[in-house]
C-alpha cells in the first residue's frame, strides 16, 4: 500500500469509532453511504480497471439479498451462514454468464446487464417461493450491537472492497485487467487470457455486490423485487463513480459519500421534489464531469 492508500485505510478503520457520537439519523446516513461505497468500489474493479460498465450490477445485489433472505426464511439458517452463501451464489452466477455476456462491449454490455437486472426482478415478482411482488419479511435482528451491527457490516465490506481495489491497482493480476481495459485485442495477443480475467473481475464485482445486498436485506428486514432490483440504485453507483473518479482507489469512496450526503440534504430540504432534483443532479454531473475522468 502506498502512503495515501494507507491513510484511507486508517480513516476507514477510524470510522468504526464514530457510532457513540452519532444520532440515529446520522448513523443511518453513514450506513447508507458505506453501502453505496461498497457497491461503487465493487463496480470500480469492473469499470475502472477492466473497462466494462455493468449498468445492471444491482442484479447481483438482488441475487445476494434474495438468496440470503430465502436461506434464513425457508431453511432457517442463521444470517452469518446465509450471507456468505448469498455472496458466493451471486459470484458463481456471474462467473457462469460472464463468458457470453462479456463478448459485448460498451453500451451493449451495459444495457444487457440492465436487461438481466430487470428480468430477474420480474422473475422474482412472478415466482411463488420468492414471495412474489409482496416480498419477504425477515425477523428483526436482536443480538450484540443492536442495529449498529449493520453499520459495522457495511464498514467491513467497504474495507474488504477497498483492499481488493488496492490489490488490483498494484498486482500483476491488476495489470491483466488494465491491459484488457486499454486494448483487449492487444492484451490477448500479449498472452493475457482475456475471457478468464474478465470473468474473474466480473465475479469479484458480483461477490461484493451480492454481500452488500445480503446485509441490506437483513437491515431493512423487508425485501421486495422493486427495492432489491432498483434501477435507481444502479445509476447512483455510476454517478458516485463519475463524481469521485473512476479507476482510482479513493474515487469511489469520495463519490459515494458525497452523493449520499447530497442526496440526504436534498431529501431533507425538498422532500416533494426530491426525484426531480435527483434527476437534475444526475444530468448535471454527467455534463460537468470533464471527458477524461471516467478513465482517470
Amino acid at each position: 500500500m502506498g502512503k495515501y492508500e494507507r491513510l484511507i485505510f486508517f480513516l476507514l478503520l477510524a470510522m468504526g469509532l464514530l457510532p457513540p457520537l452519532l444520532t440515529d439519523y446520522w448513523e443511518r446516513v453513514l450506513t447508507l453511504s458505506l453501502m453505496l461505497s461498497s457497491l461503487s468500489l465493487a463496480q470500480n474493479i469492473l469499470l475502472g480497471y477492466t473497462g466494462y460498465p455493468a449498468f445492471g450490477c444491482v442484479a447481483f445485489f438482488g441475487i445476494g439479498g434474495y438468496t440470503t433472505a430465502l436461506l434464513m426464511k425457508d431453511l432457517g439458517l442463521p444470517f452469518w451462514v446465509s450471507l456468505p452463501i448469498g455472496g458466493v451464489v451471486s459470484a458463481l452466477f456471474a462467473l457462469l454468464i460472464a463468458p457470453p455476456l462479456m463478448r459485448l462491449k460498451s453500451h451493449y454490455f451495459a444495457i444487457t446487464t440492465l436487461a438481466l437486472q430487470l428480468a430477474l426482478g420480474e422473475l422474482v415478482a412472478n415466482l411463488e417461493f420468492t414471495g412474489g411482488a409482496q416480498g419477504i419479511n425477515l425477523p428483526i435482528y436482536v443480538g450484540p450491537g443492536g442495529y449498529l451491527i449493520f453499520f459495522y457490516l457495511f464498514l467491513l465490506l467497504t474495507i474488504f472492497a477497498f483492499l481488493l481495489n488496492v490489490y488490483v491497482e498494484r498486482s500483476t493480476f491488476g495489470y491483466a485487467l488494465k491491459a484488457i481495459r486499454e486494448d483487449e485485442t492487444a492484451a490477448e495477443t500479449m498472452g493475457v487470457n482475456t475471457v478468464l480475467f474478465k470473468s474473474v473481475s466480473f465475479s469479484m464485482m458480483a461477490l461484493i455486490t451480492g454481500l452488500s445486498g445480503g446485509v441490506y436485506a437483513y437491515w431493512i428486514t423487508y425485501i421486495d423485487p422493486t427495492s432489491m432490483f432498483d434501477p435507481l440504485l444502479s445509476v447512483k453507483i455510476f454517478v458516485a463513480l463519475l463524481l469521485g473518479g473512476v479507476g482510482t482507489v479513493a474515487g469511489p469512496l469520495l463519490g459515494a459519500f458525497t452523493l449520499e450526503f447530497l442526496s440526504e440534504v436534498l431529501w431533507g430540504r425538498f422532500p416533494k421534489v426530491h426525484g426531480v432534483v435527483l434527476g437534475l443532479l444526475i444530468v448535471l454531473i454527467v455534463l460537468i464531469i470533464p471527458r477524461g475522468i471516467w478513465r482517470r
Partner: protein
Amino acid sequence: MGILPQLILESLLLGTFYAFMSLGFSLMWGVLNIINLAYGTYIILGAYTAYTLYTGLGVDPLLSIPFSFLLGLSFGVLLQRVLIDRVMRLEPFMVLILTFGLDVFLSNLLNLIFRADIRSIDVPYAERSFVIGPVIVTEVKVLVFFLSLLLTGAVYVLLQKTWTGRSIRAVALDREGAQIVGISPGKVFAVTSGLGTGIAFSSGNLYGVLQGFTPFDGGMLTVKAFLVSIVGGLGRVESALAGGLFLGFLEVFTAFYLGEGWKFFASLLVMFLFLLIRPRGLLGGKYYGEV
C-alpha cells in the same frame, strides 16, 4: 382453436402500434448510436399532452397528434443541442446515464404536476366495438392500428424520398462517408433527434387512447422500444415493423397462456437473449459494439 384468430388479430393490431411507437428509438439508436433511456417517458409526455388538451380544451387525442409531434420535435432538437451533443463525444455509455437522469427528472416532474394516479383519455367512442365473424375488436384499437400504419408509412416516405431522409440514412450507414459528401452530422443528429422525439410524443397520443398511464410507465415503454429495435435491427422502417409485430405476438400470447404478470418478463428475457446471441437483430443491420 376458437380463441386463436382473436389472439392473432390482437397481436397484429398491437404490434403495428409498437412498430410506430419504437421507430423514433430505433432511428436515434441507428443514426446517433445512442440508447435513449428517457424514450419511454417521451411517449408518456405525449400521452399527458393529449390528456391535457382533451380535458382542458376538448380536443380529440387523435386530432392533436400533429401538435404532439411538433412539441416533441422542438423538445428533441433542443435536448440534442443542449445536452446530448455534448455527452455523445464521450463514451457511449455516458449517454445511458445522462438519459437515465433525464428520465428520472421528467417522470418525477410529471408526478409533481399530475400526481401518480392512473389517467386515461376517455374518448366517447372508447366503448364501441366491431364483431367480425369469430372475433371482437374495439373501435379504438382499429383506429390506432390504421393511424400507426399511416404514420409509419409517412416516416418511410420521409426517409426514402426526401433529401432530409436520405442524409439521415447516409449518416446511419456511414458517418464519415456522409461527411465526405458534404452532409453535416451535427445537423442530421438534431433532425433525427427531433424526428424521433416527435414520433415518441405522437405515439403517446395513441398510447393514451389505448390504455391508462401513470408518470412512471416510461421505463417499461423504453424496454419495449428497445426490444422492437434489437429484434428487427436498427434504423429501418421495415425492421421496426418486424420487431413491432414480434413484440405484439409475444405479449398477447404470453399474457393469454402464462398470465399478464409474465408479459414483461418475457420481453426482458427475449431482449437479454437477443443481445447475448444476436446483437445485430434478426434481419441483420448495424452493431456498434465492435467498433
